[in-house]
């Protein structure tokens, strides 16, 4: 393998080796089986050997559903490739099932004649019953269509650890590591990274570290020495652009983006948040970064969270609040105060399945219209969306840029799929990140005399951005009052004047429209000059759309794509771009929310492609849709 990492196993002899451009592997087991750890270890190692990759965890909704039940199944899917990829893949080529429930729940997705590794030890009466199996699938031939590898994982693990200073319970917990070792062999992966990780993780419990390392190696050698697998897979490294990389989760990247924005703006970061799936980890991440001057305020509810952020913004902080659908609904009234007070604020919505409590652990894109319109009165706000786990970093910087430049609350849309999914991230040069410095109003400058005898005019605007001055408490001579009642233009005094109201409604709208001036022209991937079909996407559908469009083009179909970072305002040239194509397709994990905005704005009969199942699009689904639209049947 073309990697400077040494491979512990001598190159295989006995086994034939198949080369693959990409492979999708899913680890599935009980929530207690450590599938998330197993998956992420395989991910890190694969990253280190240079594959491009993309991952997708699938947690159960319950904290700890009863062991052995369908509800308790936890899964982790990773796709590794020798080329640039953007999704965790549709169906797995390899499925590791740690118990009957996992098999029952996940088998449906496994590709025909896919590789299936099961822990036979768990396939007893009780577990089979819990999973709802009438007969044992390992025996009734129902798995004939797959390459089945039944392994006594538990037994083998126990045997490996005979005499180790651990109770059986702890020993059994290591069986996922045994499986991991086998899979490492299967894909010719080095063990060092995981060994190193185990030693770090169990630094305080050396006996546990030793045991796990031993089990890992035994699993590897077991696969090597026994004839259990006829075949070994190889996936060459992908040719990634030079640079320093790490594997990153969406919420981590988003948190880092906010910290970076704080550094680049010189403003202290304040997060007002109330825990909610799948946004909570933003609060967790940021609460651990106090050395960056980050303040995290776990409020009593979402209203207090956004309110506290507004207070911090009034005081001159880089204010952020984060939640998911139900919490965002609660923030609407206070967000509207920020709209009227014209204070910078970033509202992060990590979308999940709705309506109401809906599907907390599943993903969806169904809050677009909520954040666009869900406030009383005419209340426009800029909206930006992240399109991949790593992109959450850039999206956060862009949201902050707009908020500070225009003194306006900005909504940043992510979703559960991005939040918990991961991909390799090429680390940016800190120095190359956008300069977000702001200038507070100071006595004598900005605002200045408002003509009507007031010392300071809190609503005198920057002619370019229409931003009002940011005069923070503590600044002598700029004492002023703001609030939620309609403001008089320039002075900011309360005004009930009809003409003034219409003017202010106009100004707030125009200010948001002006944001479009600062965003780059629409990038068309494919045929910029136009063609039969344009696929327009936003948010986490990027990967699936990209893959589908590439494949369709390889099939010779005239299809291009546009992926929107800015959903409000839309790019100035978008209407013209759409006009260059015969048809426009908009795949969304909702019932057609962007489609509605495009139809209303451009009067183009865009074709919506809704998927509302709480899970991401498959590349194949979009490809199929493209084919039918273009009458390309195969």
């Amino acid at each position, binding site marked *: 393998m073309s990697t400077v990492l040494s491979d512990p196993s001598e190159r295989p002899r006995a086994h034939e080796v198949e080369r693959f451009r990409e492979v999708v592997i899913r680890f599935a087991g009980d929530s207690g089986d450590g599938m998330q750890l197993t998956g992420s270890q395989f991910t890190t190692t694969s990253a280190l050997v240079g594959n491009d990759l993309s991952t997708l965890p699938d947690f159960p909704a319950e904290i700890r559903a009863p062991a052995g039940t369908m509800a308790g199944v936890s899964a982790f899917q990773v796709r590794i490739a020798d080329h640039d990829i953007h999704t965790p893949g549709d169906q797995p080529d390899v499925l590791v099932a740690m118990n009957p429930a996992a098999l029952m729940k996940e088998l449906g997705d496994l590709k025909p004649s896919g590789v299936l590794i099961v822990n036979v030890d768990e396939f007893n009466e009780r577990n089979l019953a819990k999973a709802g199996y009438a007969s044992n699938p390992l025996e009734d031939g129902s798995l004939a269509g797959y390459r089945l590898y039944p392994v006594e994982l538990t037994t083998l693990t126990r045997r490996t650890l005979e005499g180790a200073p651990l109770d059986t319970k702890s020993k059994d917990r290591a069986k996922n590591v045994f499986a991991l070792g086998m899979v490492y062999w299967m894909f010719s992966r080095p063990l060092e990274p995981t060994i190193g990780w185990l030693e770090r993780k169990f630094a305080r419990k050396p006996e546990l570290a030793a045991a796990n390392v031993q089990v890992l190696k035994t699993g590897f050698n077991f696969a090597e020495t026994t004839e259990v697998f006829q075949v070994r897979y190889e996936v060459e490294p992908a040719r990634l652009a030079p640079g320093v990389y790490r594997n990153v989760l969406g919420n981590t990247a988003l948190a880092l983006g906010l910290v970076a924005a704080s550094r680049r703006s010189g403003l202290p970061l304040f997060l007002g948040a109330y825990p909610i799936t799948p946004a909570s980890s933003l609060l967790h991440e940021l609460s651990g970064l106090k050395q960056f001057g980050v303040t995290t305020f776990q409020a009593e509810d979402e209203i207090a969270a956004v309110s*506290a952020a507004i207070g*911090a913004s009034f005081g001159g902080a880089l204010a952020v609040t984060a939640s998911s659908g139900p919490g965002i609904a609660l923030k609407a009234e206070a967000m509207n105060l920020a709209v009227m007070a014209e204070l910078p604020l970033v509202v992060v919505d990590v979308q999940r399945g709705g309506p109401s409590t809906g599907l907390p652990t599943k993903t969806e894109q169904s809050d677009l219209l909520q954040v666009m319109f869900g406030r009383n009165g005419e209340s426009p706000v800029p909206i930006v969306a992240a399109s991949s786990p790593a992109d959450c970093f850039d999206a956060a910087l862009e949201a902050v840029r707009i908020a500070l430049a225009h003194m306006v609350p900005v909504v940043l849309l992510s979703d559960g799929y991005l939040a918990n999914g991961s991909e390799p991230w090429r680390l940016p040069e800190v120095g190359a990140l956008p300069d977000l410095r702001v200038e507070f109003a100071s006595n004598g400058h900005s605002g200045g005399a408002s003509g009507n005898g007031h010392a300071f005019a809190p609503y005198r605007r920057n002619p370019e951005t229409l931003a009002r001055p940011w005069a923070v408490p503590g600044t002598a001579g700029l004492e002023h*009052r*703001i*609030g939620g009642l309609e403001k008089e233009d320039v002075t900011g005094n309360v005004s009930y004047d009809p003409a003034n109201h219409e003017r202010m409604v106009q100004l707030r709208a125009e200010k948001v429209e002006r944001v479009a001036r600062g965003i780059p022209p629409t990038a068309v991937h494919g045929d910029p000059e136009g063609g039969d079909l344009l696929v327009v996407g936003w948010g986490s559908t990027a990967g699936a759309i990209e893959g589908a469009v590439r494949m369709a083009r390889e099939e010779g179909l005239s299809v291009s794509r546009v992926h929107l970072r800015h959903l409000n305002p839309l790019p100035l040239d978008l209407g013209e771009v759409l006009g260059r194509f015969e048809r426009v397709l908009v795949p969304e994990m909702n019932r057609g929310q962007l489609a509605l905005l495009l139809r209303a704005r451009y009067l183009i009969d865009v074709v919506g492609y809704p998927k509302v199942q709480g899970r991401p699009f498959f590349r194949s689904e979009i490809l199929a849709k493209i084919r039918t639209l273009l009458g390309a049947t195969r």
Partner: protein
Amino acid sequence: MTAEAVTPALTAKDFATDQEVRWCPGCGDYAILKAVQSVFPELGIPRERFVVISGIGCSSRFPYYMETYGFHTIHGRAPAIASGLKVSRPELEVWVATGDGDALSIGGNHLIHALRRNVGLKILMFNNRIYGLTKGQYSPTSERGKRTASTPSGSVDNPFNPLALALGAGATFVARSVDIYLPHLKETLRRAAAHPGAAFVEIYQNCNIFNDRAFSYITDKENRESSVVYLEHGKPLVFGDKGARKGIRLAGLRPEAVPVGDGGVSPGELVVWDETDPQLAWLAAQLGPPDLPTPLGVLRAVPDLTYEQGVLAQIEDARRRQGDGSLDELLRRGDVWTVGEDGAISQGAAG
């Protein structure tokens, strides 16, 4: 954050704005405004360091009339907004002006949490026992049986006892005064200003339009002496008109009014006020008509770590231990690898 002007001695006039005050003629809010405007300059703090934050209500128009930084926010959220400001800017003097509906109805949760957290806010609750701005519906402090626009046959629920609620929430400073008792109100405001943590001050305020004379049982000349007892740290609880002075004594845990002076019980038997005693604070919160006088003054004042101090300490501590964070290192946390120009991959951040 910004250079502070050297502050010449300020006067009440320095805290008055050019805005026309728009409360009804005779509204108790005028008296409270006067008291605040005259106490602020006494505090010797630069004007630009004051911030007055309110919700919605007649009382919440307060910031418009104070020449400080001000924020007339939304209904009930002032304590939350003020908390965010105070936590991120501890050096500011953050005062909250709110009403009984704003603070105890829609804003009840934010209030009790601000008090529990001990965020250094000075919360002035104008209690007129009615919704003024919306024209006279009953409020959570309206007495049971109250007939209002929204309760034509009388309300059927018990009101909150704001002092008891604040104590139940764990407030470190709880006090009560009255709009027109200027000297007492000013002294109470000074005490609140001096308290490092969250200070909750209930101010009886007359709404002469929708709930006139709600407090006449103490504010009417003839009642003033007999109907209120002033809580003064270290002093016994005595009250009543010259002729008939009374004191408050405990029968077990039950307070009772007893005559003092010649013929009466000796001062030694009376309750000596201690604003740090939780049981006494609770006891005082229960005092009031018909049998006992209404307590005015500071029910509770105990020092405790403030929320913002705690937050600041953790940030400073983190910086001491980890140095003030390097963004570069932060981004490179965890397993990183380097792809070379030649596509070769090496573990760690090479070069």
